[in-house]
């Protein structure tokens, strides 16, 4: 089967969207998929809009970019940024987003309006990544919470993610690995509950 998965990841510079991308592509590689992951580096990493295009497939991947209307998943660490990238989503695609706003602009729209707009999309899993990261024991694991929240929508086995997290954080101490595992589990749990309602 020609398994192809396309995801748009987005957020605000400094939030760690590239590490979400890294966990996902390394996990996909373990699963045996080739990857192409386009990243934004440079200027916008200073608190601007940041996005990554992640394309995973069994065969050759040509384009580094995902065309509009083609992504299965739009995954955001910040709700306004998630909205900004919704045009990439294909009909029937899923939105996974943190609801925690980063209001570093002059006129941030009303938070309730932003969230209401996200909820209009038929398939969505919205979560407070900050609260869940704190619950996991380390507020800096928000990006791993999001990885957990995406995981039920992807065909990779959970141990593959956990191995990758271990590889990425192992050198920084076991406590950090544990916090990331907990963050992953909390994010995943949230989306599993959402999924059971969607079905």
């Amino acid at each position, binding site marked *: 089967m020609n398994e192809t998965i396309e995801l748009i990841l987005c957020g*605000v*510079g*400094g939030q760690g969207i590239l590490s979400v991308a890294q966990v996902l*592509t*390394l996990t996909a*590689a373990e699963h045996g998929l*080739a*990857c*192409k*992951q*386009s*990243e*934004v*580096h*440079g*200027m*916008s*990493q*200073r*608190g*601007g*809009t940041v996005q990554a295009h992640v394309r995973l497939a069994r065969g*050759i*991947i*040509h*384009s*580094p*970019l*995902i*065309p*509009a*209307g*083609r992504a299965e998943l739009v995954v955001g660490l910040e709700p*306004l*940024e998630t*909205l*900004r990238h*919704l*045009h*990439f*989503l*294909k009909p029937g695609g899923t939105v996974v987003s943190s609801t925690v706003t980063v209001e*570093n*602009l*002059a*006129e*941030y*729209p009303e938070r309730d*309006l*932003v969230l209401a*707009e996200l909820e209009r999309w038929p398939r969505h899993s919205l979560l407070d990544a900050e609260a869940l990261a704190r619950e996991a024991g380390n507020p800096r694991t928000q990006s791993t919470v999001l990885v957990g929240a995406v995981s039920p929508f992807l065909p990779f086995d959970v141990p593959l993610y956990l191995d990758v997290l271990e590889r990425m954080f192992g050198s920084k101490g076991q406590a950090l690995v544990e916090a990331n595992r907990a963050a992953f589990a909390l994010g995943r749990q949230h989306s599993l509950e959402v999924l059971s309602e969607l079905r």
Partner: protein
Amino acid sequence: MLSEPLLGDEVVARAALDAGLRGAYSYPGTPATELLEYLQGSAEVAKGEVHASWSANEKVALEEALGHSLAGYRALVAMKHVGLNVALDPFVSSALTGSNGGFLVVVADDPGMHSSQNEQDSRVLAEFAGIPCLEPAEHQELYEAVQEGFSLSEDFRVPVMLRLTTRLAHCRAQVHRREPQPPRARRPLPERFEDWILLPVNARRRLGRLLETREKLMAHFDERAVSEVQEGVPGPLGVIAAGLGYAYFREHYPDPGSCPPHLHVRRYPLAPGALRALARKVDEVLVLEDGSPYVERALSGLLADPRVRVRGKLSGDLPRTGELTPELVGRALGFEGVPSRGPSMPLPGRPPSLCKGCGHADLFKALTEVRREFPGLFVTGDIGCYTLGALPPYQALQTCVAMGASIGMARGMADAGVLPVVAVLGESTFAHSGIPALLSALRGQVPMTVIILDNAAVAMTGGQQSLLSGEALLNLLAGLGVDPEHLHSLLPRPQDHAANVEVLRKALRHQGLSVVVAARECLQAARRRKRGLA
């Protein structure tokens, strides 16, 4: 051996190491920065087998790499597109000296200006210098191109350009690696040093040789390209695709059997035989290329066939500026886009901004306050994180043109009577190209103020170490001849605001040249440093 997922920049670094690289030089600049960063993190550099260092600017970096090549080793220099403007002088002349050890000039263009002050196409400059240029479409081809580039450079004894664009440089993918080679044995120094002494008498001879080499290269490339013309499914439309244009083309024709007749352009100078062979099969050709309409323009001369219509950026089938996208290429190929739907509410943009607590912000606050006392004050800016001070809420800078340009432009304005005038730039930008400008303003006794923001890091490009900071910077300024009375230092932080306003006031009141160094470590660099120590 399959690699881990690597950025395009990292693929170049990995491939160069595997091909026996011995020395690499660079000045940071998006999207090229990660090449040298990867080398510096490599085992080969840690073991001392390979040299990799940041240079003061791209001109210096290119000369260092050229010296390494002259010494007989494989060498590379890496930079962003505008860096090549800075290095243009030795770049063009290095085409005349030629190379000894394989010499690769890696240039990353930024179509669409994701992180740049302009859009320019380095293929034009490779042609300007008369050297070959390789332009891969994807990662595996990129890996192979590095190896090919070194061999070409050694076989034809010319520097070889490797052109990347942002989407290749900053896309991650795995590549199949070849068996790594140890750094190549040193090639003997040239027998005739006249080839490297570009006095007119020698340079004329070398130019003749360069033109001959170019002919040979063209024939060499043409031979390969003719066999690469793809018959495809016969039809009126043929496609000539270079670099990412080819990747986007194949995205729309994933099955090689379904493609229209096409030619994938990977090397320059262009292969006239191959281009003509393709054109003979079709009524019109669509040119897909990222950057300027470089191939498209060349085609009108090369084809010399009024029967064949050439479509591309000049014909309006593709936009003249910005980067290619799969959607744009699809439309030019006649595919309908997939309908997509965004949110119904308007979304405010999110421009980049200074980090919370950044010392640059404290300096801009102080500058904004004294500004009220000096009506007509003009502030020339420069390139770095502090350029963000041009945006609200500070709006403190009135220009941003090229690395180091703040000082020269301020002097020009002062000479024209626009006073008072202040130049604001970072310490890395100052080291890159501000020093000669300050020297000239000092000798001209120009009344102006130069503010150097010394955060001890090349922050905008990810916090590489600065070559000129702290004591060394102050000593250099004194040595250049800045009057000690008018050389001020300040610490840009909130609790020193009043004192800093006073320092700026004093500097601005001075009728001659004054320099203010605002020194406080970049927050991000400090955080990384502490994490490194912990």
